[in-house]
């Protein structure tokens, strides 16, 4: 994957972050992402992100589970190996409901977790670039993607004017790549430049 140029602005307060997000978007810059130490209510709306489709995926995984369970059990008990269990009919639907329910939940849960990991680019033995180590601690880190027309220095000044406590320019990989954090000696070092 190609490396890209990013301008990073760090905010120490969500009260400052929200108006800044609005101003950056109105100014026409493309926000790559905002990294926060905790889930910030309403930030997705401020960023203009669309509603996630994860639950639709979950529904599809769920009905896949239901269909798998029902077709599998009904084939086994009526066609493949019919057994007389307590004089019940071979097609004994009530007895299958618990298993159907379990498979529905299993498919939906596992499917959604894997999908979530994929869209958030999380997996074992895979690395992603960290724009600022303190994004997991006490800083709200806004990352803006630069295009050919972006003047990075202007943007830095713009962010600082809107309350960013730190700003810098990073050239980084945007997606994930194979690698391990525990093999990385540079893990806790960063090359950020403190502005003003």
């Amino acid at each position: 994957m190609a490396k890209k140029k990013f301008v990073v602005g760090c905010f120490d307060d969500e009260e400052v972050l929200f108006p800044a997000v609005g101003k950056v978007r109105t100014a026409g810059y493309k926000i790559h992402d905002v990294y926060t130490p905790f889930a910030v209510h309403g930030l997705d709306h401020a960023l203009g992100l669309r509603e996630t489709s994860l639950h639709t995926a979950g529904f599809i995984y769920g009905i896949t589970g239901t269909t798998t369970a029902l077709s599998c059990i009904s084939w086994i008990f009526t066609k493949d190996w019919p057994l007389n269990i307590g004089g019940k009919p071979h097609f004994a639907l009530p007895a299958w409901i618990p298993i159907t329910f379990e498979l529905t939940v299993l498919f939906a849960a596992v499917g959604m977790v894997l999908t979530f990991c994929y869209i958030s680019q999380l997996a074992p033995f895979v690395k992603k670039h960290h724009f600022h180590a303190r994004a997991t601690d006490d800083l709200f880190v806004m990352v803006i993607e630069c295009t050919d027309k972006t003047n990075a220095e202007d943007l830095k000044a713009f962010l600082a004017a809107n309350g960013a406590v730190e700003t810098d320019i990073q050239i980084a990989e945007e997606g994930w790549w194979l690698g391990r954090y525990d093999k990385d000696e540079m893990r806790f070092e960063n090359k950020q430049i403190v502005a003003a």
Partner: protein
Amino acid sequence: MASIRLQFEIPGKLKTWSLGLIGVGLVALVFGMITKGFSTDEHEQVHFWGTLMYNTIFWTLVTNASMFFICVTTLAMGGWQQSFRRIPEAISTLVPIFGSITFAVLLYVVLSDKHHIYHWLDTAAVAKDPILSGKAGFLNAKFFIIWTTLTIGFWSFLGWRMRQLSNEADVEAMDHETGTKFIFRNTVRAALFTVWFALTVGSTVPWLWIMSIDAHWYSTMFSWYTFASSFVSGMSLIALWLIYLKNKGYMELTTQEHLHDVGKFMFAFSIFWTYLWFSQYMLIWYANIPEETVYFKHRVQGPYKGIFFLNLIINFLCPLLILMKRSAKRNYTLVTFMAVLIIFGHWIDFYQMVMGSLMKESVELGWLDFGILSFFVGMMIFFVGKALASKPLIPKYHPFLKESVIHIV
């Protein structure tokens, strides 16, 4: 809070409709009383008193579920429900009224010795019957009357205490210390109600009032199943009033976010109801013991087949498929439609619980059932409207009100 309308004025249309419904109900009640209630035919008598029983019990439990909702959210330190808590409060003012009607009906059934409804009232039969004499400590007229009195009395009293406390949030702004004390007193009163609720709706009362119609049959899950039924209808009723008030321009602080959470309760407890329904059904189906299957025999294979499966479609499949989407729970029209459907579905559920045991040969769902239903709906609209008008619609000095205002799902 200049722009917020705290005082509910009962619209003329609401009054006309409620009085009209009560009128229709009274006509049906009197006509039913003459043709059925006091007729010499036992079948007709059972039909009349059974209809009264399931309607009174259903509406008492549904209105009481509102108070349960306030109490559990209080115990959970919930803040989000404060902006509309006056709606469940107003609904719960019906508990003493519907409770007394239920009490009168049940008292009449027990004291007039109607053992076609409650077989265990027949002392001669109980003495000869080892199963019934084993249950005689629980199923006897004296215990029935005492426990019913205590149940309805404490529901009304503890609910009233909870509502009284809520009035303090209208008087003046509370400082930190007063607020903490206020929340603590709320917690204590809510806990008392919840414990009593668990001892009654959560266990004994549905066994006593409804399950004992099939005196030989028992299911320990029955009370939870009844509770789930009444709670999900109670949440639907809250949703209906919420939407009605929003439509009339009240409840400015209550938004889609609150409706979404009420919708989640409707969705989740529909699933919970199905879980209990199915657990009860499947164990009995699997074991296939005659004294247990007797309850389901005429429901699944007899005349109640249609109602039995309609019940499952309305109360499980519809909420599951329609309310699952986030946008559906935030849509006022869809939630209104689903709330009406759910209340109707659980009313049908109570119908088959009671009438399915009393009149096994045929389904006679007709003018009497809908007439009595109209009486209770009219009473509900009339008294909830009155109760809403008697208090400010928002407890404006409640310490948790701000949490409700900024609530986002």
